[in-house]
């Protein structure tokens, strides 16, 4: 029997099966997802997710360009993991969360924490009762963290993104965006200040926009149980 005669049709058939099962059918299932709407009296009062056209959209480009996705995921996994318990999100993420992202930045691995909900006020990366837990992770905190991670997170293994900042001479009353709360060792010389570049501002806007905790029917938000804290 000739085996080689069927090699081309055979391999194309295997390819077609693979394409159908892995791409075509899943696309029919997931590609048609739309935002979940809530209506009251015929009016849409709530819609999630929403397409992002703000500074944050530029920030996503900076995030990708800097390769943040090599170390940070944006996927909160389901109940057989501790992702929700860690404080990375109020629920697992699902395909509907990403319908406006082409492509979604789900990330390659976790050498750093998951950032799917880093913009959410309840996001945390340590037990809820950890004495070193920062009060809030707002724009100022994010800026400092980008500039010198260990200044705000002592054991951080993240590299400094100081090249997204510029040191320049203070003019007039100073730049309103200049870094605040720098530890002494990092203060610039007298008369100078450190200001974020446009890229750094966009990146922080993007990080603060990341909040996928909105409840969905296929993934209702579950209250993050406070860990016992050992």
């Amino acid at each position, binding site marked *: 029997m000739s085996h080689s005669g069927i*090699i081309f049709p055979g391999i194309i058939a295997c390819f077609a099966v693979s394409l159908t099962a892995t791409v075509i059918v899943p696309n029919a299932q997931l590609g048609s997802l739309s935002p979940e709407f809530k209506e009251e009296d015929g009016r849409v009062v709530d819609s999630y997710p929403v397409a992002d056209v703000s500074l944050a959209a530029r920030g996503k480009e900076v995030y990708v*360009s800097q390769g943040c996705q*090599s170390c940070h995921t944006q996927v909160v996994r389901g109940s057989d993991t501790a992702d929700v318990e860690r404080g990375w999100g109020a629920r697992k993420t699902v395909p509907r969360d990403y319908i406006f*992202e082409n492509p*979604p930045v789900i990330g390659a691995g976790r050498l750093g924490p998951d950032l799917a909900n880093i913009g959410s006020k309840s996001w945390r990366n340590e037990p809820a009762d950890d004495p070193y837990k920062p009060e809030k992770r707002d724009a100022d905190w994010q800026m400092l963290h980008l500039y010198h991670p260990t200044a705000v997170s002592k054991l951080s293994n993240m590299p400094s993104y100081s090249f997204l900042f510029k040191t320049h001479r203070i003019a007039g009353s100073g730049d309103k965006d200049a870094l605040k709360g720098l530890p002494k060792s990092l203060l610039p010389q007298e008369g100078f200040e450190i200001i974020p570049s446009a890229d750094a501002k966009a990146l922080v806007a993007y990080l603060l926009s990341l909040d996928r905790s909105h409840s969905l029917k296929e993934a209702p938000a579950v209250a993050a149980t406070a860990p016992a804290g050992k």
Partner: protein
Amino acid sequence: MTEAAALEATPSHSPLDAAAASVLAPSRSAIDASVRPVVIGLFLTATVWLLVSTILGALAAVKLHHPDFLNFSFLTYGRLAPAAENTFVFGWCGAAALGVGAWIIARTSGRVSPGHTLAAFGAVLWNGGVLVGLVATLGGWMRPLNGLESPIASYLMFFAGLALFSMWVLLTFHDDEHHSLAAMFIIAAFVWLGLSLLTGNLLIVTNSVTGVVQQIVAAWTAGAVTRLFLVPLALGAACYVVPKVTGAPIIAGSFARVMFWMYFFCAGLSLAAKVPGDLLPLWLGATAASASILIVVPVAALVYILLASAGASHHGAGSPSLRFTIFGCGGLVLSSLLIALASLRSVDSVVRFTLFDAGIQSLLVHVSVTMVLFGAIYYMMPRLSECEWLSSSLISFHFLGAAYGSSMAVGMLLLSGLAAGEAISEGASSFQQVMEVGSSYFWGNSISFVFVLAAHAAFGLHFLLMALKIGQPAGEPTLLRAGSEH
């Protein structure tokens, strides 16, 4: 001349070759001469990419424990890691695989290649794609698609290069019923890679698929480069080199062919497993996991058949080609077992997103495929450059350095991933505590690169000498010590 030497010698006189030579018009040396410039050129560029990617990989490894080492925007871990991996996969493995594939097809078809223009253009485009990908990734022009980080231009160059190169290979391909398993693997690998590079990248770049499906398509496309191009090509190369060196034909030919089809069918369905299960339709996650487990059967069966065939012969002891190839084949079996293990739900929930994944990828590509490619190059170069490798000590050094170094890196990544995964499953710990657990292994990973880099540099030097025809006179093969004692 020992028996092994007779089989490894440049003008090969194995019983198989003798029989084949009597019925085929062009001599093997004429076939070798017809592909020589293209294949040696590809190996040369592949070796350069091997060294470049190993240096980048070493730098990325250092950054795991010293994140601010050489802290420039173009050298952050985020850019280095994908740049190193893609240069390794497409630059080293890809270019070497094209060369190995073309030569084996020409040899098994018994035809002289007509001209070099198509192949030369193809090889230049392929290497151009690697360069564009490397520069773009370090420069920050990258996409958040795992395994497909380089810009679309890079993949279009790969596709165009592969298409031209495949045309050249197909011109020599002689399709008849006596076709060898090696040629089947190689042709199938070329066809699949071309189809998936084109389909996957076009679906993404035209936004024909959106949202999570783009990541599924990326996993399907990038996964195919490894599992449906490099691994089948390595299996094909092993199916050619092992019987040639040992002089024993592959036993269970029909069964091996069934395993061939099973491999392609299962591997084709396994690729979505790279995407986290919560983002996949339930049935797809289950299908991909089952296919990942089933792959163990054809890989283990094919490697067993090869080893059994080799074991039945007393020839080939001391052959460097055989040693590298068998080591790589062992790695293929081990990595398919680990892929199966990691696809179990209970294991996946622990190791997903840790360096365990990187460890498996490393075992598959940096150890298994790479060692088989080295084996094939050690076999081919004496025939292509008509002289023998200069030094058996240099080959031994290369083997030991590459085997210990890359195995150590794999071990460290797997252990680090397991430790971090266990720690991350414990919600009451802070993330910094999790990273501290995994980071104990990062130093070991960096140290392993010292061995790997030294080994690959030795290979690079040895290869360069061969390309310049500086070696021992043709006829007496360069064997490792174990063989020369017989």
